[in-house]
């Protein structure tokens, strides 16, 4: 069955973030945000990933062909990969400018997206204002 663009984006995001489970609705929101800011680079990175998506050594291929590539004509792929990571981890990212480098001002997300940032679960905490725990939980290690 042919992969949809969203499926491709989710599969790429799992490799880039190291997170095995990504919410599909959130992925769609993020895909639309990224495409709105950098449609050309997103098309390119999804196409590049689509070509290697079935490789049994996917992390290696993603590193060589996308995240750390030095191939001519693909200079913007690592920067785009980094913004995809930052978006999933923090709900904000820095769109790429005409020079292929991230611009100075971030694009921020919704409150729900901010709370969903992967960074907070990686450090075993929560986004500020989103505790949902009881008094004193902080006296023990997570």
């Amino acid at each position, binding site marked *: 069955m042919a992969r949809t663009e969203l499926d491709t984006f989710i599969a790429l995001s799992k490799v880039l973030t190291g997170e095995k489970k990504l919410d599909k609705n959130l992925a769609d929101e993020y895909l639309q945000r990224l495409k709105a800011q950098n449609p050309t680079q997103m098309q390119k990175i999804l196409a590049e990933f689509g070509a290697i998506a079935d490789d049994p050594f996917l992390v290696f291929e993603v590193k060589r062909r996308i995240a750390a590539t030095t191939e001519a004509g693909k200079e913007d792929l690592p920067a785009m990969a980094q913004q995809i990571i*930052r978006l999933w981890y923090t709900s904000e990212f820095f769109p790429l400018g005409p020079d292929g480098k991230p611009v100075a001002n971030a694009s*921020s997300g919704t*409150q729900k997206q*901010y709370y969903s940032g992967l*960074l907070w679960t990686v450090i075993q905490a*929560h986004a500020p*204002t989103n505790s949902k*725990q009881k008094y004193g939980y902080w*006296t023990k290690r997570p």
Partner: protein
Amino acid sequence: MADEYDVVVIGAGVAGALIAWKLADARCNVLLLDAGEKRLEKNDRAAFVKLYAEATNRNKTPSEPYVDADNSKFAHSPDNPDFALADPANKLYYRQTGPNIFKSQYQRLVGGSTWSFRGNSPRYIPSDFKLKTLHGVGADWPISYDDLEPWYCDAEDALGVAGDHREWNGIFGAYRSRKFPLPKIAQAYGDMKLKSKIDGLRIDGVKVRMFALPQARNSRKYDGRPACEGNSNCVPLCPIQAKYDATVHVKKAIKAGAKLIDRAVVTDLKLDGSNNIGEVVYKTWPDGQINSAKGRIVVLAAHGIEAPKILLNSNAGNGIANSSQQVGRNLMDHPGGEGAAMMPFQVFPFRGPQSTSCIESFRDHKFRSEFCAFRLTIGNDGWGRSEHPFDTLKKLTDRKLFGEELRKELHHIVTRQLRVAYSTEQLPDPNNRVTLADEADEFGIRKPKIAYKVDDYTRKGMEYIQKIIKTIFTKVGTREDEWEFSDLKTGFYSGSGHIMGTTRMGSEPQTSVVDAECRSHDHQNLFIAGSGVFPTSSCTNPTITLAALALRAAESVQKQLSS
């Protein structure tokens, strides 16, 4: 014709709210004015939380949750963009002339700066009130710790301060006649790991001890507000109001019969024939309508920049309450900074309040005639201003890390990040002052012009402080090549949001603005409340001290009304 009241209180921050509440409760007819909006409902707080969550990390500043277009125009709350020297094209609110930049903000919103304060509530110590006598620098207060002690107890009850009586009773002679109303805020896991490594360490003959930080934050349900849930967002906003903010006492004042008018910027205090404040003139926004009110007594509680601004603007710009020429002078802050290190053990920041522990061991010391006293706060927010976790992430992605390797490295680094923040004492300097700029705001009111310098008394202290922190970090076993410290070679310091000194208290009318009861020396029916009345700064968060002074002043106002 102006409405008439027993008391007109200008400013609904913690000082004004407490005074309005006390006097309304005593059946005085009270009008409470505030330049900012009234946002007192739960859905207001939720809206602030949403706005803040949706701001970019760079824009997550203390004023950010409260940003509103009209408020920015008519009752601007200074924030990071204002921390710059003014230039001709610059439209900033603060018109700063230097030589150093004043870096403290405040909130012009009903409830004032307690919306965004951390909630730290240690008392001043007896020597803070006698700096000139004991150390030959600064000034003495016209009151002592003993005079204020009962009011400290009342203020702690009013705000709901959580603390450890055993730790804090008698520290540097600051005895406590009453226990804290709430048990201490539970100390963070990481803090206790650090404490186990350093408690009792001797540096320059001083025994370093880590205490639980007294804070206006609920360790259990109190005064109808919930216990802290560790949302890690104390500055700039507690989403559940476990942290005290002055809307608590604004509501109590209203319930007791006080009238609140918000969006009311006071433009003039007119004198009557008896040299008293005859009329309080204010403009409401956004309509710009001019109104006035009369009070038998007027309490000016507009914080350390707006209060002198109002006084200097009054009387057709000639000023009032200023025979001492001290209005606006002696501006002080607690210039701060931090040292950050990677702990050799995990501390798991961003879980719980932004700080739960402190080191008070240097609140008074043998070098205080040469350099400042200081206190240290253990951060529970990673590397704080030195490096936010979003910046740590960027560093790792810049190295092209991704996937599982990125996760591991991010976890390894951030769960070990800890900072020790310092807060320094600043001496009163008459050249550090608030005057009126030529530029006016949208209401045609002249903006505050600020001249400010951080002198060697404080800067020399910062050098010493960083040595202390480095000694602590070394004892703990951190790596020097992983340290980050505020860069003193570039003269770096941060502002604390503690604005003091600009309407100082004193016994002598020639050298002070208000007397020991916060009554203006020049105008019998004018009281001034807030940290602007502090003659010296100590190194300690001013809120509980200004709250104690406010309650004491409320009693003086009440006595004066009755006499």
